[in-house]
């Protein structure tokens, strides 16, 4: 685990993608252990987390993640930030679980035998040592997502970022994964549309149009967010009915 203080800092950060402003002068200091990120589609959540591990470079402003500058690129940030994507099929590359798990370690210069040993130890610690030789495509969606998390944990990053990790999972698998996440020593930043999964988090940030709309504990932020979503749903429906009414 990295020894740098587990703080993420953004100072006046702006970002545009394909000519569209997605983040606007965002300043945040994140030092809690469990942080949730919510917002409607297109609010800038995905861009924000991609900024933190260097997948996207910021236009202006300063970003620091556990003392590291993500401007060095995602490959250099891999040891600091573990990133879990929405669809495990995009993340899992190798035919067997063991090859998948040792990939990152070997990139860090670990020997084949050393990497294999560490990977097996981790599988054993979680009671899945029988997975090692299994073909990745034979695993269930939840198991695949778990392999993604294991692969990232082996690199011992200080921060774990999860971009909607639950969207393909059934309820029991979701609970199991959440329990596992809560037991980890890492700082966690998670995007989720499943609001119940964020209830036990320390802090929630609600993004809208690339700015912070609300920031606080789950109970205050979640109720405001849900009220706003209902309000929007009502206007969406009206918006669709109006042209029909004029036709009639």
């Amino acid at each position, binding site marked *: 685990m990295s020894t740098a203080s587990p703080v993420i800092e953004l100072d006046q950060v702006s970002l545009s993608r394909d000519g569209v402003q997605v983040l606007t002068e965002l300043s945040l200091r994140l030092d809690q252990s469990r942080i949730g990120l919510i917002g409607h589609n297109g609010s800038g959540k995905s861009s924000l987390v*991609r900024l933190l*591990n260097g997948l996207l470079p910021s236009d202006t402003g300063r970003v620091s993640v556990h003392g590291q500058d993500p401007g060095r690129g995602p490959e250099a940030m891999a040891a600091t930030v573990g*990133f879990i994507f929405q669809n495990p*099929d995009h*993340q899992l590359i190798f035919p067997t679980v063991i090859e998948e798990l040792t990939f*990152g370690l070997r990139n*860090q210069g670990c020997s084949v035998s050393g990497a294999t040993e560490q990977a097996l130890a981790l599988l054993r610690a979680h009671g899945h040592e029988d997975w090692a030789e299994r073909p990745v495509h034979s695993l269930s969606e939840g198991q695949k997502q778990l392999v993604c998390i294991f692969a990232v944990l082996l690199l011992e990053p200080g921060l774990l970022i999860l971009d909607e990790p639950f969207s393909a999972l059934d309820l029991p698998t979701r609970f199991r994964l959440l329990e596992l996440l809560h037991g980890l020593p890492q700082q966690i930043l998670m995007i989720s549309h499943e609001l119940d999964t964020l209830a036990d988090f320390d802090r929630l940030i609600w993004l809208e149009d690339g700015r912070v709309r609300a920031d606080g504990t789950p109970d205050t932020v979640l109720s405001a967010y849900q009220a706003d979503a209902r309000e929007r749903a009502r206007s969406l429906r009206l918006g669709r009915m109006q042209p029909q009414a004029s036709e009639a």
Partner: protein
Amino acid sequence: MISLYLGQQSWLHRRPAGLKLLSLAAISIGLYFVSHPFWMLAALLAVLALYASVGRQALRQLRLLRPLLFLFAIMFLVQWWSVGLAAGLTLVLRMSTLVLLANLITLTTRMDAMMSAITPLLLPLRLVGTDPARIAFAVALVIRFIPVLLAQLHGLKEAWTVRGGGRQVWRLAIPMTIQAIRMSDHVAEALAARGGIQTSPGHATHSSRSHSSAKESHSEG
């Protein structure tokens, strides 16, 4: 793993890959000097006997010849019409023998053994700055992508049928390609987030340079 390799064991499995490849090359050249259909038939029967000696599983793989039958028929007709019956027979028999023999090597040689047997041929690539480790990785990626693409294709086909479909199935090529491109964008992203592809020492700068010089394409929201 997608491969033609037969998991059982046989005397042919135990021969080294390099020896099998060399024998194949020698026999293939030798067959070009056989011009009588009778001797060509004898060669074909000898190859069939080889299949039988490897086992029933191998004999079942004779079906690999089936996709070529149409072409063989045209070849036979054209050759018969322009040269003669004997020439037509010899040609088709020789083709069948060659293809079956080469397939037999593939059936009895593991993919990684084949890869290490031909790796010396890849070494010149180092001169142009390509690390063999990257090639191995690319091979793994291809094998990994195929089932995902097939699942996508299957999903599209199902939706197409449910919605009434029709004969213009080729239209599916458009969403198929777009989905594939999106997937590769995600995979490239995930790969970078996990530290990128390892390069053997002394090669890191060179090979990364040669690849980033290729036009970086789109980013997608």
